[in-house]
């Protein structure tokens, strides 16, 4: 198992290295020099050349790449060409906000999907099971930004229970922080919860039909005991796969939802960067998103081997 952990980690690091080259290359092949973009079309050639020299943009690409990538492990993402500010601290701040948002969204999705999916599976032959499956179908059809707008109009504009947007840090005012987190987390989680509940339903249905569940019942376990003691861990294996994929989707979904709720997260930073043509900032944010998605995949791989002894290397 230790060996597998090692190879998985090596794969993770190698993929990350390749991704960094790709992200850097993409930004470099974009037309127009960053200096030209910053100074505008009317800038003189001398000014552009001067600025390129200042930022080291006239050096060979491998050197520029190394300069950028070697700072990443220590959190040095370079200095913005546009604002002149350090990029690293901004990314760290914004990542924390997005992390809260994605975590809360995932929690909402799980709280919805696990009971709903299990119930829909257990009652799949009854009308109530069909109704539950139908509800999740509706949930899937609603994009998260629309869910966000509907939530705002109902719960903040009409009822006034929660703020329509904005962000309070948990340290400064925990209550206001939670209040502000509810609607965006629901907007993200409702959709993902609907998708997830369908996977939970089919997984639970499949596990219910497994021979070892019948064996468990032949040993004297009630059907629910058989499901809890034998079914859950087996069902967890495919569900973890979907969870990993969904976390990645949530991360991307957060970009949109942050915009709807005016939340200063990674997504807002990315959109600001794109609008200001702040290439180095965009490069940094994209790199962090790639890192997060690769880390999620690595975690899913590790969880597999924990959950399923068949995937562990045996002597």
């Amino acid at each position, binding site marked *: 198992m230790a060996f597998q952990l090692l190879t998985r980690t090596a794969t993770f690091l190698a993929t990350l290295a390749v991704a960094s080259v790709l992200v850097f290359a993409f930004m470099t092949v974009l037309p127009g020099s960053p200096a030209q973009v910053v100074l505008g079309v009317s800038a003189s050639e001398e000014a552009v050349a001067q600025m390129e020299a200042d930022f080291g943009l006239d050096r060979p690409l491998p050197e520029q790449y190394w300069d950028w990538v070697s700072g990443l492990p220590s959190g040095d993402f370079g200095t913005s060409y546009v604002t002149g500010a350090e990029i690293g601290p901004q990314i760290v701040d914004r990542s924390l906000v997005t992390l809260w948002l994605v975590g809360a969204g995932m929690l909402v999705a799980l709280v919805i999907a696990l009971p709903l999916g299990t119930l829909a599976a257990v009652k799949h*032959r009854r009308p109530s099971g069909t109704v539950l499956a139908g509800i999740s179908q509706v949930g899937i059809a609603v994009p998260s930004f629309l869910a966000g707008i509907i939530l705002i109009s109902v719960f903040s504009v009409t009822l006034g229970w929660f703020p329509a947007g904005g962000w309070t840090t948990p340290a400064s005012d925990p209550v206001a922080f939670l209040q502000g987190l509810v609607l965006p987390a629901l907007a993200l989680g409702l959709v993902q919860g609907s998708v997830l509940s369908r996977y939970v339903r089919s997984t639970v249905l499949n596990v219910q039909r*497994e*021979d*070892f569940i*019948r*064996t*468990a*019942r*032949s*040993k*004297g*376990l*009630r*059907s629910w*005991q058989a499901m809890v*003691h*034998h079914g859950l*861990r*087996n069902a967890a294996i495919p569900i973890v796969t979907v969870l990993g994929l969904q976390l990645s989707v949530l991360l991307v979904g957060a970009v949109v939802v942050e915009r709807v709720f005016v939340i200063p997260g990674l997504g807002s930073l990315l959109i600001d960067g794109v609008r200001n043509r702040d290439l180095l900032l965009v490069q940094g944010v994209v790199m962090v998103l790639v890192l997060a998605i690769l880390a999620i995949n690595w975690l899913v791989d590790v969880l597999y081997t924990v*959950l*399923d*002894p*068949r995937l562990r290397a*045996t002597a």
Partner: protein
Amino acid sequence: MSDPVTARTPADVTVGGAAVDGAPGDDHRLVVEDLSVRAGRLGLVHDVSFRLGRGERVGLIGESGSGKSLTALAVMGLLPEGLSASGSVRVSSVDHDLVGASDARLADLRGRVLSMVFQEPMTALNPVMRVGDQVAEVMEVHDLASGRDARRRAVELLAQVRMRDPDGVARRYPHQLSGGQRQRVMLAIALANEPDVLVCDEPTTALDVTVQAQMLDLVVRGAAERDAALLFITHDLAVVATVCERVLVMYGGHIVEAGPTRRVFTAPRHPYTRGLVRASDLGALGVDGTDGSLRRPLPTIPGTVPPAGAFPSGCVFRNRCERADEACEVEPPWDGLPGDGAACVHPYDPEDTAAPGDTAASEPGGVT
């Protein structure tokens, strides 16, 4: 093939006249009466009745789709969703009928009074749970042992089913064991709580021939040591001949013939049983008294088993039977004693011992 089981005679396991208290009286561990299984309006098993005595080994044979497994599952109260049982299933140590009992009551009996070994060892064990824990669980769920005690007992049971290194096996996962080893784990689970009735549903069908004999020996020994009644489902007549004292023949959800194994296999009365015996290679075992060295194509029963619901009315076998006529269009009455006879209007004469293939050699039967 040299088989350790063949050396056993029924006398080995007969118990000296100890009467069992309470219902259903006599010396019967299991009494099944008029057991039927339905899927909605479709009848799958019809009015099946049989009794198992203490330490008795009874075979339930028939082609695939004859209702053998459904009968066993109905006895266990483990019918799949959508199927329902009616009739009566009683065990000697329990004072209520198992058919119609609540799942809580049945769960209390399963694994303790009634236990079962399933056909498919590769999928019957939980892949993510250690083997020892799966054996220990059957004792823990009935509060008969717990914690370390249950683990220690589990290792003992694994040793009883002749697992080498039972300590190590207990710590392993099912995928690290062979099919034969897994089936022995299933047997250890089934025997753990000294059940009154052990049901085995084709426990050796999925195993290599080389490990079949050992498994059969363990099943017979395990049941005998506990004085448990054994209901052994198989379509392998040679296995029945070595394991069972009595045999029930099922076709189309009906028991069409019942009797002592030797009588049923040497002088079958129902044309279906006769076809089964002729289509099997029992001659090689000398059960039917013929020379097994004779090599000829095995005769087959013409036609195939119809899908459920497509059996003819009256005698369910009449569309494949060479003796069928108008008299077979009504359901045939039972001919003979309750435990030794056949449901047939035109049974073969008991004197007419069915020498396999004597007629079929000249006119090969239909290919199934």
